[in-house]
């Protein structure tokens, strides 16, 4: 690797392998070359065996100790971990970057399942604010209710809440799918940039406020539309996709999707489609 202390600002990113050519603008940057995918890996990831199962009681553990123990179990190859007595603790199950079956027998506090890429998580309780923030891939299912900022800034994966959620669900989301079985609060889809949100119940005021792109489907009543959010035609392919998604999510399988409202961004940002093309590909 190049000595980064001696390179100029212009070429520092290239020396770190972030670019393969001299670039002149953000819209022309190439962030990731799929041909080199095998050279990319996460630190601290593990090959786990889903059939290797264990329980972990975290009643008397701090969040840091609980997360370290989950990491320790994954390093031993455990692919299915059942967490007992989470009791609303914050920041549990964060930073998991490999496949894993993670089951919580209870509720989580704030920032649960944050910054994950790959695990399948089932929470047999409720979650607090900012659950699954920055999720890259995987599936997170919450059996009860969720707090505000549910699925903030996710880039991929499926996030399912069978109950109701608080305000600002899907704020700043850049991909993936969020499915809500109950109602959602104010500012749902605030500044969302890509991805899809499905709400089977009612939704609060300012739905899709300042959204750039992405799609929101609502089964119930809408409190009010936010700036830039407009109705769009619900197509046959939308309905097929909704049916398929709800079936896979094991939620609202008999829901009449033909009556759902479809909300999209009303204005297109200049040069928006040229931004981060590889990321867009990944999100789709």
């Amino acid at each position, binding site marked *: 690797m190049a000595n980064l202390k001696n390179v100029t600002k212009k070429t520092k990113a290239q020396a770190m392998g972030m670019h393969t050519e001299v670039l002149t603008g953000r819209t022309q940057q190439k962030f990731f070359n799929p041909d080199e995918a095998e050279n990319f890996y996460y630190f601290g990831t593990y090959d786990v065996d889903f059939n290797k199962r264990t329980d972990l009681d975290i009643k008397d553990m701090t969040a840091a100790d609980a997360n370290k123990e989950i990491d320790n179990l994954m390093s031993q190859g455990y692919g299915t971990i059942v967490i007992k007595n989470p*009791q*609303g*603790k*914050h920041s549990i199950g964060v930073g998991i970057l490999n496949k894993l079956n993670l089951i919580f*027998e*209870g*509720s989580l*506090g*704030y920032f649960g399942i944050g910054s994950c890429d790959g695990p399948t998580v089932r929470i047999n*309780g*409720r979650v*607090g*604010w900012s659950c699954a923030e920055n999720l890259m891939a995987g599936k997170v299912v919450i059996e*009860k*209710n*969720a*707090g*505000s900022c549910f699925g903030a800034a996710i880039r991929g994966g499926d996030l399912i809440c069978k*109950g*109701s*959620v*608080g*305000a*600002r669900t899907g704020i700043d989301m850049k991909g993936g799918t969020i499915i809500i079985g109950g*109602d959602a*609060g*104010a*500012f749902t889809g605030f500044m969302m940039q890509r991805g899809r949100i499905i709400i089977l119940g009612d939704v*609060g*005021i300012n739905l899709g406020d300042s959204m750039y792109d992405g799609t929101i489907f609502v089964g119930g009543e809408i409190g009010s539309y936010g700036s830039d959010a407009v109705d769009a035609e619900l197509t046959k392919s939308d309905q097929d996709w909704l049916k398929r998604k709800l079936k896979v999510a094991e939620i609202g399988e008999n829901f009449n999707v033909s009556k759902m409202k479809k909300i999209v961004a009303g204005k297109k940002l200049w040069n928006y489609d040229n931004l981060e093309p590889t990321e867009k590909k990944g999100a789709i």
Partner: protein
Amino acid sequence: MCGIAGLIHRGKSSKVGHELQGMLQALKHRGEDSTGYALYGDTDGKNFIMRFKVGENVGEGSTSVSEDISVYDERKKMVDSYLAEMGAKIVKEERTLPYSLRYEIQYDKKDLLEFSQKIESIPGVEILSMGKSLEVIKDLGNAKMVCDRYNLDKLVGTHAIGHARMATESGVDIKSAHPFWGYPFSDVSVVHNGQLTNYWNNRRALENKGMRFMSECDSELIAVYLAEKMRDGASLEEGMKESLTGLDGVFTYFVATKDSLGMAKDTMAAKPLVLYESDDLVAMGSEEIAIRSILPQEIDTYDPFDGEVKVWQI
């Protein structure tokens, strides 16, 4: 960022001091500059309980100016003399700390405005609460420290609200700590998490209408705002609903009266609140771990939506 917690038992009494201590201690990471309790104890309802201070806690971390303890004694003497002048008889007197006192008093008049104005005309004296059930206890430090200092663990009652404070808008002192008494209404208290942006406009308007502010803490506005609405004939719930548009900013607040407990959340739902509701207990707090401190078993909780107001009776 501050943390708030509250609970109400319906149809029974419990050790609310102990329970609220557990809830607030679970929230201490949200702020431990000061902690306050508004406890609604079981009483015979005959006498008023007046909690008041004759000075500030000037311990470590305090922003208050140190005073000689003899000044506190002088102020206490003046309070005693004013009470006698107004025909209020002291039935029981407790001086928990040099600056903090609890009186049980016989006082027949219902209007507490004149009474409060007279007592608080003594410089350095502030009534923390006045009521036949309510007792507001607030001081510097976290929930356990304050609870131990004032021996609140054994207090039995029906409901309580409390606050763990991280000082932002005003100093680290008792006068800026929550809960705030809904002066001059008997048994009304308020705690708040958030920030009010039209504080000064509202304060000036309310002061012009004769309402009193003791601190520069924006949260005090909520207590005064609701007190003014009730003075003009609104019910507690009506006043709370009006506050959603009358108060600007981000807030979740609790208000309690002798027989009820209410919550309100601003229209942007910018401040957290988790709520547990059953037939015999309602418990709520800024974070679920507060509720878990008294209900460790698996329970169903939820976030109230934006612009929501709820009131429960004992």
